[in-house]
């Protein structure tokens, strides 16, 4: 059984994590408590981040950028009216996590810290060029989402560090979308795709989820594709670049072969979905 400690500040939380070797930070609990119940983790201490005001809430900064406190629940992200246009993809991803009840519990910080390759936030955040704010024994720092995932369930977070917030550039008026292929509603992704169109409609940003340890994003290929969105060959070439980055699992949700096959199919179908949004708009 684990002792629950409830620090009131980020500094206290970091100190507690440093003090107890087998302590783990507890965000929403949706994953960590489930793992503990199954005996997969056995923390001596759980550092409850629920009482730290700094970790809550979604704010806009002076430049229009958005800061999402790490303890923001999925339900609040899914309902956040500030996440529009190019950031709508994040809102949509939040709304597809698990189910309504779990979305009342799980937090963005917890999900990102767990770095499950099949979870929904990472591809959406990669598509949004998010930056993570973290705090640890060595102080505070920022990590680009593109440098964050370093292996299977391995991240740039150092021992004792916690995520305090996720920051996003100011939204621009351009359509974005998230599509997840999953066996049933609420399952983790077999494969997913987050995509946002450039404001001028000539290029896109896209990230593929669940096809490698972290989201797949290829900014060079995006540059090559720019201006050629209506050329099906160019789009497939772009998808091939993302597929080349993939290192998919063979698991109960699908084979590696199926996941590779899905990458170009997701890119083309999400692109046409976005194009439709543009026409409607």
């Amino acid at each position, binding site marked *: 059984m684990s002792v629950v400690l409830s620090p009131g500040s980020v500094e206290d939380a970091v100190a507690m994590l440093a003090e107890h070797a087998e302590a783990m930070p507890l965000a929403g609990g949706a994953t960590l408590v489930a793992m503990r119940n199954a005996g997969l983790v056995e923390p001596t201490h759980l550092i409850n981040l629920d009482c730290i005001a700094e970790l809550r809430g979604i704010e806009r900064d002076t430049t229009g950028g958005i800061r999402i406190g790490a303890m923001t629940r999925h339900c609040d992200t899914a309902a956040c009216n500030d996440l529009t246009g190019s950031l709508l993809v994040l809102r949509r991803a939040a709304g597809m996590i698990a189910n309504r009840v779990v979305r009342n519990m799980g937090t963005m910080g917890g999900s990102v810290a767990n770095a499950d390759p099949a979870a929904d936030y990472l591809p959406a955040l990669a598509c949004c060029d998010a930056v993570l704010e973290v705090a640890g024994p060595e102080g505070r720092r920022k990590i680009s989402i593109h440098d964050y995932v370093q292996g299977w369930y391995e991240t740039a977070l150092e021992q004792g560090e916690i995520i305090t917030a996720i920051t996003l550039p100011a939204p621009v008026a351009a359509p974005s979308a998230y599509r997840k292929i999953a066996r049933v509603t609420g399952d983790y992704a077999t494969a997913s795709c987050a995509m946002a169109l450039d404001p001028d409609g000539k290029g896109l940003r896209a990230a593929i989820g669940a096809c490698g340890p972290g989201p797949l994003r290829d900014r060079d290929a995006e540059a090559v594709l720019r201006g050629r969105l209506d050329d099906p060959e160019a789009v497939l070439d772009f998808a091939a670049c993302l597929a080349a980055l993939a290192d998919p699992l063979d698991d109960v949700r*699908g084979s590696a072969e199926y996941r590779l096959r899905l990458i170009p199919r997701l890119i083309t179908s999400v692109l046409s979905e976005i194009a439709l949004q543009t026409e409607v708009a």
Partner: protein
Amino acid sequence: MSLVQPDPVFVGGSVGKSIAKPDNLEKVQGRAEYIADLYRPGMLHGAILASPHAHARIRGYDLTEALNAPGVVAIVTGDDVGDGRMGAFIKDEHAIARGKVLYVGEPVAAVAARTEQEARHACRLIKVDYEELPAVLSPEEGLADGAPVLHERLADYIKVFDAGSAGNLCSRTELSEGDVESAWADCDVIVEGEYTTQAQAHVSMEPCGALADVDANGRVTLWSANQSVFRVQANVCESLSLPMSKLRCLTPRVGAGFGNKMEAHIQPITVALALKAKRPVKLIMTREEDFEMVRARHPFRVRMKTGAKADGTLVARECEVLVDCGAFADDSPGVMGYSLLMCGGPYRIPNLKASGRLVYTNKLRFGAFRGFGNPQVLFAGEQQIDEIGDRLGLDPFAIRRKNMLREGDQWFVGPRIGSNGLALCLDAVEKAAKGPRADGSPRNFGLAVTAHISGLLGTGAIVRMLEDGTISLNTGATDIGQGSDTVLAQICAEELKMPFDQVAVASPDTDGSPYNWGTTASRVTYTTGRAVRAAAKQVVDQAMSHAAEMLECPIDDLELREGGRIGRRGANTDVTFAQISGRAHWAVGGPLVGSQTLVYDEPTHDPKRAIALGLPFPRIGVFSFAALGVDVDVDDTSGQVTVQEVWSAADVGRAINPRLVEVQLHGGFVQGLGYALYEEMVWDGARLANPSLMDYKVPTSRDVPDAIHTFIIEDPDPSGPFGAKGAGEIGLNAAAGAIANAVAKATGARHSHLPLTGERVLAGMLDSGTSSERSA
């Protein structure tokens, strides 16, 4: 405080009315008590240590550390349970692993401690010395020369039928009528294929559990989640070598079964713990244990060949199945035998041959699951019917109508068919599903038909008229949530012409209830209903005798009137059941009790017609029929199938409670949808790789069609109570077959492997050219 008004009182005429189940009220208020909700004074909690090996000899145990762990009171291992063995068809299973372990997850030891946490902790301190043995992980491996043998003493085990067991062959069954070999020459079209189906987990929302208590004389009382207190009693007593009189089995509310709770799960272990601890012990499985330790639907390999004349008349079918039994026989011989009886479908096929082999493997036992072998062979058979129709230009309805069995025909190997509403089922589905979708787009329609028996084995009912003229009904049938208590009370009330709410249903109790084989095989309404009606009739007859004396007239002049009264025909005077029962209790003749037991005894096999070897069920039952239509969409990106609309028509003889029949059809279809599209237990070597609801997915509310249209067809069966036949399984059987036929329509590709995952369907679309690869 009662928030919800009691159900409207129906006076007489209970049968055919959708009376709400009385247990619904406590369930919506969160007050229903399931096994995990029971507590006893001084009660301990149990936990189980599972085998990490697929096949190993147990050389010994070191319990020292575990016994000294905090809170631990008793530990049970194979050394504590004697040499008794249980099993429905072949007695091959100890209460807990003894001598050997035969699958990963098999219970090896169990601990009783003050708390569940302490019991689980102590389990991890038990040391078991194993000598690993080579394992058998598939039926093919099991049949290979030189394969490791799971049950060295198989020849000595008690078997209730001619199983033909040898080596790892648990049983074999061979059935045939006509002359298949020479019939192929008469066929103008022949289709042939090999099909595989996967293991499906029951996923009753309530995991299995049990609570045992021992009285001062050493007699045990056992509550458990079950589908039959009598099978629990038999299994516990056989495996622990207890006289049956020393064990009383009871049941709280049961959170569904689907076959999972029919034979034993952890009841024998719980009893062994309570006997050793001399205190009450409650053992509740985790979801993971429920996946790994109980049972599942059998994976089948089916080779099937069907031939027809150019006009569509079916001529011959041959079906050969290879069935993974898992480590213990459980209900497997029955499942395989039944699947072979069903492999011809509800068709006239003059030349039919079926054979099967059931092979022990070092995996979780497979056993009874709603459908009982029927969905597996139907997936093959109903696709072949469509393929023949396609080849001959006959639509799916036409080819089925042309060949379907009629009333009075004989089913494969012999049973005579009573009522048969299949034609009406087909009509209902065809009429309702005709034409395009509401938006004008064409349907991707798939059809399958099925039949299923209701019957099998012993049952009974005791109807007692209480002193005030109300009724106590005691049948021993466990209501697992499907509503059999309600249905049986309706039958009883109807026969007695009493208000439904004046019939109380006693909870099953091996001390007081008449024997009931179990809530399985779609049988309770049909078999137990017959007993209930007959027992109620006895009470009516007894009441008539009293009334004749009280009204001083011949019995023949009397009539039973609504509301529990007997009067003289043509006269207003009557006597009430209260008056009659009062007289019987206090003055004349003794209290009114009707009691009826019966066993289904129509033979399955007609030796003049067919050859049958190794038939596990010599007497099966009467036949229900159904037709199922589905309309599907296939996503071009992922290949994933979505069922848009469903038409499910079932001939249940007479719907005693139409709403409950409908819900059986809804629930059965959705469980079948999961089976058809994504549910699959996956093994990585010997290890079950997805024993959790995180990894094993069942349909959610968003994954099922809103438009499930049900059509209850009533072609009364002469032997059924008020004409009723079973409805529990028939809604599931045809789901995978109908969906596969619809997917073939939508994608141009036939599938021979279940489940029809997006991955498989997409591959089929790429092969058939209905979709193209999107690659640079």
